[in-house]
């Protein structure tokens, strides 16, 4: 294992975020605050409690997931896309480093960044609502798994994307709708039966549901299923990435 190389990639990627630290932190904090003002206080005050949890509190896990998912995908996809775009990827390809090590470096850095953002959002939320976490260890576990699997997903998009448009189209057309329709801001049980069934095909539902359970012990689907689905998603992404590396997909001729 080329530890120095993994560290080099990881540090390099973290440094990139460090330079834009203000944007990296300000935007999730501000948008979370805005959501709280709009949904939590203004609209939320007119919505009755959901399964015994006040609406303002209920949306905290979903809100966190929204940012964590978008940030994971954005960070990881950009991290690998940009060197591909400038051509500086030649160096990574010619280094004595395995595909797996490349992956740990890039995905590890992206996941770390979104994990930090997730924690900062929770911290911000705690200023607006009386946040309680029933299962802190599970909360962190769900968060870490989500950061990892969606950073991996972002990495795939970064490898696949041939131009900037493609890089942005997936987060815009896929991630955002999935998050909004995945029960981030409501309980799935509030939907008509047909849409409830449709929602079951949305992987984000399982993330949000499991994550929410770790806070309030209420969930749309059972925790075991949530966990299984996240792991399935993670393994699928790993499979796709290893296929991409094996075939040199859009990296090597």
């Amino acid at each position: 294992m080329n530890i120095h190389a993994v560290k080099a990639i990881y540090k390099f990627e973290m440094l990139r975020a460090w330079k834009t630290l203000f944007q990296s932190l300000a935007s999730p904090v501000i948008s979370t605050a805005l959501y709280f003002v709009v949904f939590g206080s203004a609209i939320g005050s007119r919505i009755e409690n959901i399964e015994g949890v006040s609406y303002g509190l209920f949306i905290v896990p979903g809100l966190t997931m929204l940012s964590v998912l978008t940030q994971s995908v954005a960070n990881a996809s950009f991290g690998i896309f940009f060197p591909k775009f400038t051509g500086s990827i030649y160096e990574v390809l010619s280094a004595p480093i395995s595909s797996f090590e490349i992956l740990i470096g890039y995905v590890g850095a992206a996941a770390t960044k979104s994990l930090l953002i997730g924690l900062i959002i929770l911290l911000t939320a705690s200023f607006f609502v009386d946040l309680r976490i029933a299962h802190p260890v599970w909360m962190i576990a769900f968060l870490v798994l989500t950061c990892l699997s969606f950073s991996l997903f972002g990495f795939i998009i970064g490898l696949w994307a041939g131009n900037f448009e493609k890089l942005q189209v997936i987060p815009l057309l896929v991630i955002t709708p999935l998050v909004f329709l995945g029960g981030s801001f409501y309980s799935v049980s509030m939907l008509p039966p047909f849409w409830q069934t449709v929602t079951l095909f949305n992987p984000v539902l399982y993330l949000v549901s499991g994550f929410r359970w770790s806070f309030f012990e209420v969930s749309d689907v059972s925790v075991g299923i949530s966990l299984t689905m996240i792991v399935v998603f993670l393994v699928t992404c790993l499979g796709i990435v290893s296929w991409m590396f094996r075939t040199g997909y859009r990296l090597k001729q």
Partner: protein
Amino acid sequence: MQSIVSIKNLSKTYESGHQALHSVNLDIQSGEILALLGPNGAGKTTLISIICGIVSPTNGTVKVDGFDIISDYRKSRELIGLVPQELTLGAFDTVWNTINFSRGLFGKPKDHAYLEQLLKDLSLWDKKSNELRTLSGGMKRRVLIAKALSHEPRILFLDEPTAGVDVELRKDMWAIVEKLRQSGVTIILTTHYIEEAEEIADRVGVISDGKLLLVEDKHDLMQKLGKKQLIIELKEPVSELPESLASYDLELSKEGNLLTYTYDTKGEGTGITALLQAINDADSLALKDLQTTQSSLEEIFVNLVHSEDDV
């Protein structure tokens, strides 16, 4: 000398169907400077990219210091530094961060003193905190060299190092190459400029159309393929040559005072002695001066590539 890079039957066909390399065989000696000459699209970059692991070979094997570039890629790649043809650099990273990144990528622990000296040698030290996008083209090229040398490679590939580079940087670059060679680094460079190969290489390889036409010691090559010319100046101009000289390949200048005799250095005898004797014997000719010229690598190269085209 032992070979440090050994290429056997290497072929490459790109996905587009274009065959960029045709069964190339090449042994690169440890410690030498090898210049690969070839026109645009000859396959120079493809060859280098395969050795460095950026492009996958279609057929054949490459060993670097005995390590196969595919099954033993970690060991082979550790030894290699590459300066690519294009200015492929990030934009927002600083010079210092980018060379530290490179060193780490190649598995080397931090070494502040070495990298500081490297940047100083390349006149980049005062730019160490600059973002890459703020550097001029020449400076970017220096950064690429610094990145390639950051992990102290034993083999250095320079893919057209002097394209778009001013005289000063070119001089600096050759000074660095010389210093590296003295420390035992093997250097392979590609170029379109024959003078460059002539100036610094020990051996010259000529690639055209994906085929390695030859690899020769530079001096042997010029001797073998070079043509020499003997220019004979006459005291009095003549309008035509006497019968006795008809058997020689001679050309008379318009003014009638210069005779040019072309001969192959390959041949056994040059025929110069006999020619001079014949001139001496001819009553109408009187010798004033003699001069020889030798064809440059450039002419050799053009001849080679064109004779290949004719086949």
